[in-house]
């Protein structure tokens, strides 16, 4: 179901998300939200703005700082037919609750031979770039992408944030929904144009397993997600000036990876650069490269480029952080490097 073009308002990422949740909650009283500061505060990163006022504290529940407790509780609630949306405030905290996520939420459907459904959405904020340092700036796309049983999405633009969140809530399987802080359009963070965009009011669904070509091009394919998509778009605009036509693919889905869209692009461009705000080793720069090198090898005419956090924790000092997180400048540089390899 695609959205109609009429009366398309502009919303921030966070408003797009809370609208998706609101619509799902209105439609289905089995949908409820749990998390730290999701109530009065509306979510530290605005994902549940205004919902507490609309639905009350029974359906928008502030929790203690007990991630294993309340995210684990989503399992029991889901088994009883509820559709819990639980928020892990920063993805960086996943280590205190990873067992519930990957040994239970992710595996119960399989271990039960398909007899138990786990319609759980795990919202979590990702990303750095504002000096929140090693324990509050990660994306950890790869940590979740590695584990079977989870659909893992990381939408970039408000339109997709709403449409993919609607799909996630409607899905009978667990979905890890990663939203990027800088793309929420929050008043107290860096405000970037991409964090505001057209978002249809009515309900619509964007598939959870499809990448999207956000800019067409012929010379090289750049695969990216969230802020790296934004940076890649900036780089592509820059490159255009020097006559390099880059195609930019917004990954959107971390697991599964939409390899068809990527292969099709690489077939055309013959060259590939993958850009990630996650650690390089075992991240999606690895997975995408491996997919292409094993399943679309003959499309390739040059070594694959990988640009990601160079396997160090995110440092605090802005000068250091800037060095490790890829931006348009070093994407441009890397594109030229791949083109000339």
């Amino acid at each position, binding site marked *: 179901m695609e959205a109609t073009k009429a009366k398309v308002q502009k919303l921030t990422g966070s408003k797009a998300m809370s609208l998706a949740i609101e619509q799902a909650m209105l439609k289905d009283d089995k949908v*409820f939200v749990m998390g730290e500061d999701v109530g009065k505060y509306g979510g530290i990163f605005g994902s549940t703005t205004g919902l507490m006022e609309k639905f009350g504290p*029974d359906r928008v529940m502030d*929790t*203690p700082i*007990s*991630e*294993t*407790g*309340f*995210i*684990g*509780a*989503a*399992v*029991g*609630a*889901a*088994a*009883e*037919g*509820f559709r*819990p949306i639980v928020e892990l405030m920063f993805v960086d905290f996943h280590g205190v609750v990873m*067992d*519930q996520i990957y*040994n*239970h939420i992710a595996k*119960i*459907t*399989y*271990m*039960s*031979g*398909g*007899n*138990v*459904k786990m319609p759980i959405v795990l919202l979590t904020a990702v990303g750095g770039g504002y000096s929140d340092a090693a324990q509050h700036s990660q994306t950890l796309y790869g940590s979740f992408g590695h584990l*079977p*049983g989870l*659909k893992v999405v990381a939408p970039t633009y408000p339109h997709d944030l709403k449409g993919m969140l609607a799909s996630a809530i409607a899905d*009978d*399987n667990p979905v890890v929904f990663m939203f990027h802080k800088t793309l929420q359009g929050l008043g107290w963070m860096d405000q970037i144009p991409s964090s505001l965009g057209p978002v249809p009011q009515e309900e619509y669904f964007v598939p959870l397993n499809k990448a999207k070509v956000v800019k067409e091009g012929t010379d090289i394919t750049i695969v990216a997600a969230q802020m790296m998509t934004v940076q890649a778009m900036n780089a592509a605009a820059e490159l255009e000036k020097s006559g390099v036509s880059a195609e930019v693919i917004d990954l959107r889905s971390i697991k599964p990876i939409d390899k068809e869209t990527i292969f099709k692009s690489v077939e055309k461009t013959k060259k590939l650069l993958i850009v990630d705000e996650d650690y390089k080793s075992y991240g999606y720069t690895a997975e995408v490269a491996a997919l292409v090198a094993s399943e679309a090898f003959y499309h390739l005419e040059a070594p694959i480029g990988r640009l990601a956090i160079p396997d160090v924790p995110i440092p605090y000092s802005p000068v250091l952080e800037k060095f490790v997180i890829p931006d348009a400048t070093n994407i441009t540089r890397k594109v030229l490097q791949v083109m000339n390899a």
Partner: protein
Amino acid sequence: MSDISKDHLIWMYKKMKMSRYFEEKMESAYMEGKQPVFNIGAGPVPGEMHLSNGQEPAAVGICVHLKKEDTVTAPHRPHHNAIAKNVDLKKMTAEIYGKKTGLGKGKGGHMHLFDPEVKFSCGGIVAAGMPHAVGSALAAKKLGQDWVAVAFIGEGAANAGAFHESLNLAALWKLPFIVVIEDNSWGISVPKKDSTCVPFNDVRAAAYGIKGYLVKDNDPFEMYRVSKEAVERARRGEGPSIIEIETYRFLGHFQGDPELYRDKEEVPTLRTKDPIDRVKKHLIDNDMATEADMGAIDADIFKEVDEAYQFAIDSPLPEPEEALEDMFV
């Protein structure tokens, strides 16, 4: 005279006996294909096998008060809990045999039994079932139902973080949640005194402002009584409880455990206090049943269990490719 009705006592006896007989059969079924050289991965029932012989009072003493809509979560040692919660015995046995007809189509196995029909589940991660039961209790409250959720754990699990988080949540939200701590003295080779800083976990109720109960000496009758109170309180919306029961582990942690860490005298001593015998004696002494009645009951149980095994054995294995199915619904 007994304060427990005959019906309830007979039910408890049946479930205990069924669990015991089921596991005794399992003891030998498990050894098939593992002789003369034991190999955990061999035979028709491979993998770890944690039996609960001796721990039956913990399961039946509370489950006798439960109904179908109440939830039970259990840990890695789940058979007695599952049987007391009326899990489909055929499908459960088939699951343990890795068969297509099993509860999880052979994908789960002995540590991962899911029977949504009777709201039973278990898992292999210590204490991880507690938050699940909290979630079920939350659901019951949301639905305005008087359903209760019971999480069984071992005494070793009471030192895991999930224990604390779950109880705080349940108490905070006044949920119909009960944790039953089966204190069999051991967490694998580690005795309780080396894992737990207090002698009994009922005192931990103070940390949550809830009720704590302690059942000594594996007493099925006392387990019945405190569970009744805890379940009734939960149903009335009076919040969660901790029940700890001192129980017995007649066998090793898992089958094949050399048990070098425990005194050779411990198990024989425990076995003299077999809780099944106690219930039987009580029934007979109180004229609720004759030896003949008990014999008939046993015969029925043996038949039902034997049939479950036969069903499992006769069932087909899954096709290899089915490994790729049931990832998503």
